[in-house]
């Protein structure tokens, strides 16, 4: 049921995020320079031909905390003054997993998995929680009423609620008290042809690319080695996949 209103809406949102990304150009002009060749034409809607995804190789010996730091810096997180530890926003976290019987243990970064069939989008009453045509799932923070139903529905605990008034924000990542937020795959960077912040510092352990393009690095790696999804049994087909879990 793609009504006219919905289409109108999508382009409105693309405009919103597009203009934010354009603001990004002036914020960090140097960074953009090499990659503008891949940048999306911001005057056009997001294409459904691409589906952005990530492949995370957990067997690589990298310090995943660097990814967390890069994310915090990119989105201006960690600026809460009053919130308790369990109330602070985390877009990405390092999860330690241990097999009780064998003792084998490993760590992996977990963020929004950008599900193809995202429960957070299904349950959202206002449509604030939405999936772009290119597969990126995010919250339109101007439309979110803060009901937190999406947080209840997400099987990966990927979302955070802003528990206080925030100051000192990044123009590229608007955040606000009373709204829900989560990893947006650095949509501000991706729309400019850059890599997500965590991917950039991952020393190649996270590969970002177009899952719909069989020639892309990510698709080739997946074709060769396969990839695993967390809670694949839920059949949400996340865009974030793993090796070595």
């Amino acid at each position, binding site marked *: *049921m793609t009504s006219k209103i919905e289409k109108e809406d999508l382009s409105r949102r693309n405009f919103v995020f597009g203009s934010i990304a354009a603001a990004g150009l002036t914020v960090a002009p140097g960074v953009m320079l090499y990659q503008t060749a891949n940048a999306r034409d911001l005057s056009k809607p997001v294409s459904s031909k691409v589906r952005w995804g990530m492949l995370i190789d957990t067997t690589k010996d990298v310090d995943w905390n660097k990814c967390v730091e890069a994310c915090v810096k990119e989105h201006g997180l960690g600026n*809460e003054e*009053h*919130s*308790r530890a*369990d*109330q*602070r*926003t*985390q877009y990405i*976290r*390092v*999860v*330690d*997993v*241990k*097999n*009780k019987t064998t003792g084998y243990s490993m760590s992996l970064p*977990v963020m929004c998995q950008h599900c193809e069939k995202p*429960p957070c*989008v*299904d*349950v*959202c*009453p*206002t*449509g604030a929680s939405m999936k772009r045509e290119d597969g990126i799932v995010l919250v339109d923070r101007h*439309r*979110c*009423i*803060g*009901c*937190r*139903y999406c*947080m*209840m*529905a*997400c*099987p*990966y*605990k990927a*979302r*955070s*609620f*802003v*528990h*206080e*008034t925030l100051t000192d924000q990044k123009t590229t990542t608007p955040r606000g*008290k*009373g*709204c*829900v937020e989560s990893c947006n795959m650095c949509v501000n960077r991706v729309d400019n042809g850059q890599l997500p912040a965590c991917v950039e510092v991952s020393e190649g352990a996270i590969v970002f690319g177009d899952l719909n393009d069989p020639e892309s690095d990510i698709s080739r790696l997946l074709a060769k080695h396969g990839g695993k999804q*967390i*809670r694949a049994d*839920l059949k949400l087909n996340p865009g974030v996949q793993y090796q070595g*879990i």
Partner: protein
Amino acid sequence: MKKLHFLEVEGNTKGFYTFLGIFGLISLIGVLAAYYMEHHGHYVTGMSNQVVWGTPHVFAIFLIVAASGALNVASISSVFAKTAYKPLARLSGMLAMALLAGGLVVLLLDLGRPDRLIVAMTRFNFVSIFTWNIFLYTGFMGIVAIYLWTMMDRPYNNLTKKAGMVAFIWRLILTTGTGSIFGFLISREAYDTALLAPMFIIMSFSFGLAFFMLVLMASYKYTDRPLGDYVINRLKNLLGVFVAAVLYFVIVYHITNLYSADHRGVSIFVLSAGGIYTFLFWVVQIGLGTVLPLFLLYGPTGKNRTMIGLASLLIIIGALAQLYIIIIGGQAYPMVMFPGMEVSSSFYDGVVASYAPSLPEVLLGLGGVGVTLLLVTIAVAALKFLPASLADEVVDPHAK
């Protein structure tokens, strides 16, 4: 059998203003508490990114569930043509509306952005069960209002049965919708069961009737109107059956969980390893909220009005405990991301989340109850909701 006669409650009395004042104050404190939480942000509450729905939701869901249950008495009278319940039908419909209003106020004021209500009312995502609930709630208000009208306006009396039927069906869907809010959360063990929706319907019967009885008994007591044993005995017997039915569902729920490998954990958590949740389950929900009321209703005290009132109150307290376990316990119990593995992270993966209700949350929840009672108080004085007498010779068809 004498003729039934409805009469407004005298509004210009000290008693009336006292109740108005008390309930108004409770409502006002609730609104102020909400303002406080909204102004500072939810960091002043016990809620977190792990337990995202807290005490306000417990009260809100209680009131909404009780709302549809409170309509039962009217449904029994018009849909199932039991004349004994007819004198109570108006109060039943009105209370249902007041309970729903109280619950919705709490739900709304606990939003992160209640100022965006207009967004919620204008931009819909029809895939969301929440969206459907918005329609179910507004529809319920409208349908019950019409239903009440057909009861209270003589020329339309012949439509009461039809309106009652529509309202009855609507309320069943409404409670199913409320239960489904949880039923759709596939990722959380406590909610991943088809039993939740029917269980919510049975819960609504019990919670709604308990609330109805308290309101009925209190209003007749404080207005010095006669209320005979005929009415009370019927209602209390019905209430006991509902309480037992809820117990049955709770038992089935946990037994089914215990027999299924991937749901066993959450039932073991509630039944034996869950600390505060285990305490709430055995002591408050089962002990105080189920067994004791059954004893009070059917035991030697079964004829004592005070004891019947106490039983109703205990059922409501047990109901709140039950919803606390379902809503908050269900979130506190860790979500399984890697089955069979031990997990830990900075985001509290793999551990039972801690939650303690903060004062403003409790005050907001109670504020919702205040709103309900305030509306009831105003309504009984404004319109003819209550029969002047519910003495046995008026309502009992067999009385001489």
